[in-house]
């Protein structure tokens, strides 16, 4: 079951944004997110907006690119030429690679035609290891994709089985090698830790597999997320019924420390709480745009957008999305952020980055909290002395608490 959308005010039927939001679009970069709401099967832990049916009323996979291109036209009308060329594009899902490479290419071309792409634009697609082949990867690369993010999750069979993942344990790193072979600039492997039944050794095995791929020059980026048991998922039901143990926070903390230790030893370094990269060029620029107050347009059902302090989100169901798009904006709700809310987001997002948060954005109480966090071993003393709040390793595990304290 897809998670619920936030509460917000209604989006005008033409999707129009307040003038104030359009004064400096892309000052911190401009990106495009494309949501592809299809999967071959649904995983038990997943609460993303995705559908396994090949045809939904008014939408099928083959006509989906037309819908996205139609929303692009709406975006062009709403932004009215205020947007600069696109710096980053990210195809997420769902499973974008369930669509043929030509369809993905058509959407990417549409984006380029509408806004233009920066010469060194980062264009990423997510992919399931089993949904790509050397041929499809080459086709994507030819179409202009520069980066691929593979949903590996684990290298251990019983963990993959519990997560309902369909690929075999070895498939992800093979896919990474194929992507490198096809000429992708950057390859990410996505991991999940803290799955019920996953042992410390299982996790170490997954990390070792990933690091083998890094050492082989295939992957240059690793994301590691603790499993979040979202309400309404099949996994949550199994835990509620006592069929599976609830993953504990202590275990998650142990796994995180193990990840940090091994990934760092292999030459990767963290740049966000859950993300490690081989070097600065390997960092995901699209995600950094999210975390640094950048603007982006999210295309597709359930996609979120942010432009000039306005966040909005589209209706979730593809059929309803198609219906709404035919007459205007598919926006389901939006919020016009107050100065306070923008400040809160700024602190909560930038504190998670290795580049940290400049202390001068904080009030006196917040700066005093930063000093206390140094004493508690949560913020790096040298960085704080130099005017930035940067989390220590322990601080990364308690980042939400640090953010609450910094905000007072």
């Amino acid at each position: 079951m897809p998670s619920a959308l936030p509460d917000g005010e209604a989006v005008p039927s033409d999707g129009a944004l307040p003038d104030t939001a359009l004064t400096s679009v892309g000052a911190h970069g401009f990106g495009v997110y494309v949501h592809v709401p299809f999967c071959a099967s649904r995983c038990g832990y997943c609460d993303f907006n995705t559908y396994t049916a090949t045809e939904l009323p008014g939408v099928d996979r083959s006509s989906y690119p037309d819908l996205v291109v139609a929303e692009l036209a709406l975006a062009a009308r709403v932004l009215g030429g205020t947007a600069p060329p696109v710096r980053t594009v990210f195809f997420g899902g769902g499973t974008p690679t369930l669509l043929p490479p030509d369809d993905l290419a058509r959407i990417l071309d549409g984006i380029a035609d509408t806004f233009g792409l920066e010469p060194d634009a980062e264009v990423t697609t997510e992919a399931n290891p089993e949904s790509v082949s050397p041929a499809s990867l080459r086709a994507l690369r030819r179409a202009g994709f520069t980066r691929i993010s593979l949903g590996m999750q684990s290298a251990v069979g019983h963990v993959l089985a519990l997560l309902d993942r369909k690929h075999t344990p070895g498939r992800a790193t093979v896919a990474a090698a194929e992507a490198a072979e096809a000429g992708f600039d950057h390859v990410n492997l996505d991991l999940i830790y803290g799955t019920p039944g996953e042992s410390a050794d299982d996790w170490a095995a997954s990390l070792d597999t990933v690091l083998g791929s890094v050492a082989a020059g295939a992957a240059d980026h690793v994301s590691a997320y603790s499993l979040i048991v979202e309400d309404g998922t099949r996994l949550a039901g199994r835990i509620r019924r006592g069929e599976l143990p609830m993953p504990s926070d202590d275990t998650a903390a142990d796994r995180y420390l193990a990840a940090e230790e091994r990934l760092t030893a292999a030459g990767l370094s963290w740049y966000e709480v859950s993300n490690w990269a081989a070097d600065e060029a390997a960092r995901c620029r699209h995600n950094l745009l999210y975390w640094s107050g950048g603007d982006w347009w999210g295309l597709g059902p359930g996609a979120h957008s942010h432009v000039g302090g306005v966040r909005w989100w589209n209706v979730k169901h593809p059929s309803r999305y198609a219906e709404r798009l035919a007459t205007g904006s598919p926006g389901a709700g939006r919020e016009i952020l107050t100065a306070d809310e923008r400040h809160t987001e700024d602190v909560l997002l930038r504190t998670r980055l290795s580049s940290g948060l400049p202390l001068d954005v904080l009030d006196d109480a917040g700066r005093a909290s930063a000093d206390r966090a140094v004493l508690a071993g949560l913020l790096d003393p040298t960085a704080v002395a130099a005017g930035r709040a940067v989390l220590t390793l322990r601080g990364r595990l308690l980042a939400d608490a640090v953010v609450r304290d910094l905000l007072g």
Partner: protein
Amino acid sequence: MPAQLDPGATDPQRIRNFCIIAHIDHGKSTLADRMLQLTGVVEERQMRAQYLDRMDIERERGITIKSQAVRLPWTVREGDLAGESYVLNMIDTPGHVDFSYEVSRSLAACEGAILLVDAAQGIEAQTLANLYLALENDLHIIPVLNKIDLPAAQPDKYAEELAHLIGGKPEECLRVSGKTGSGVAELLDEIVRQFQPPSGDPAAPPRALIFDSVYDIYRGVVTYVRMMDGRIEARDRLTMMSTGATHELLELGVISPEPTKSPALGVGEVGYLITGVKDVRQSKVGDTVTALHRPADEPLGGYSDPKPMVYSGLYPIDGSDYPDLRDALDKLKLNDAALVYEPETSAALGFGFRCGFLGLLHLEIIRERLEREFNLDLISTAPNVVYRVELEDNTEHVVTNPSEYPTGKVASVYEPVVRATVLTPNDFVGAVMEICQSRRGKLLGMDYLSADRVELRYTLPLAEIIFDFFDQLKSRTRGYASLDYEPSGEQAADLVKVDILLHGEPVDAFSAIVHKDKAYAYGVQLTTKLRKLIPRQQFEVPIQAAIGTKIIARENIRAMRKDVLAKCYGGDITRKRKLLEKQKEGKKRMKMVGRVEVPQEAFIAALSTSDAPEQPKK
């Protein structure tokens, strides 16, 4: 009604003053309702159930908190007095041990008492205690079995029991049903026949016994009196003999069953006075009222000031409700001479009041009224008794709050004790003895009331009774045992103060004075409970129980190691910000104990007597 029965002009020979002694739910109010109907003072169509119980709480709990006095005209129906008219004053008495002083004053206003017992349940300990009180006051007793219409009624068995208790024959026991009205007219006839008319000197200076005092928002304090000597006229000025204070008399009258003005109250009569005072403390139960210009020399005996036996701290859950709590207590105090309170500050709970009560029921009633009538959400600390602590430097300290226990070298500690009576079916004697012994009880005696019912008498520390004793007693005897107790002085005991420390900081709300042998159990119980209730912090938090500097129990809350949401995509930002805002709101409701954030709910749960649930996982 003949003129000779008018208020102020009634011949004492035509008056009968009586009360009904009964256990909760043995049907006293229903019987009173029938009497109101049969004597014609309330018409059928005006009748509502439990007419005399005015407070919602009284009707809901089926108990009478404040007493009332109703004047009932009655013309005898049968026997040699048939056709003769009388005035019956029914004085309703509070039915609970906490209010035994009020009961004793109500009894002092009567010549006779109806001992009303449920024919399906037999006599209960509180009824027995009040019966003994009535016998001590030389009241004539008419034993009455009620609810004889019930299929489970065993009137023969319980008639035997009552006869055994008060002396007399089982067949002298009347049998009525308050519900159907059966036997009620006969009972009214017997009241006239068996109870003595009031004695007292009609020519002496007036002496009126105050047996109740009620605050009414429109009229001020309404004082209920029984004229023991002389008469009070509507134009008199009155003197309260305990204080010497004088008051203008604004109104006097009788209740029948609504207040009715009268020109005077004569000897033996029962009625009400209104003097315009606004606080029941100016018109105290047990005090003697006389006339300013014809003053009596001596007050009636038996007056004493209400003395709180149990203390508890009451705190608003929302600190900003503190002024409302103060106003509410000020209002309740107008109607409750026994309620005492003073402001108190707790490091853990903020601003509140330390309140003194007559007993646990009194505490519960006040708390419930504060929450219900004044819409307040409250935390109350564990109730405690009053201790007297003598230090080696010869100073003495009266401790009403464990956190104020003196720190010097203690020579001896005294705690209040009670004389408790437990009535139980003999199957449960062992269980009752076990409970009493585990609570430091000393057996005083044991008697069989009937073949299968036993009366056990114990001396027990009051402190042991106020902590879930009654619940234990009920659960171990499948609800059959009943309990009564009365204060019985104090005793020296081996008591210690146990502090609970959170990360090294004592939490005042959890300090308790307990017997040395139970200190460890208390320490373990509370530290275990708190470990489950307090969420993990960024650092390890020891929870310790200590006597002075000696640690007797310890638990640890391990440091929280992870407090971060791993993923934060573009679409998660709004959700994450809202979650953060919610967490910040939650943080505001946390109480800080030193560096430890303790949720309000943890205090509430730890102070409740039931077991705390496990802290739900996040």
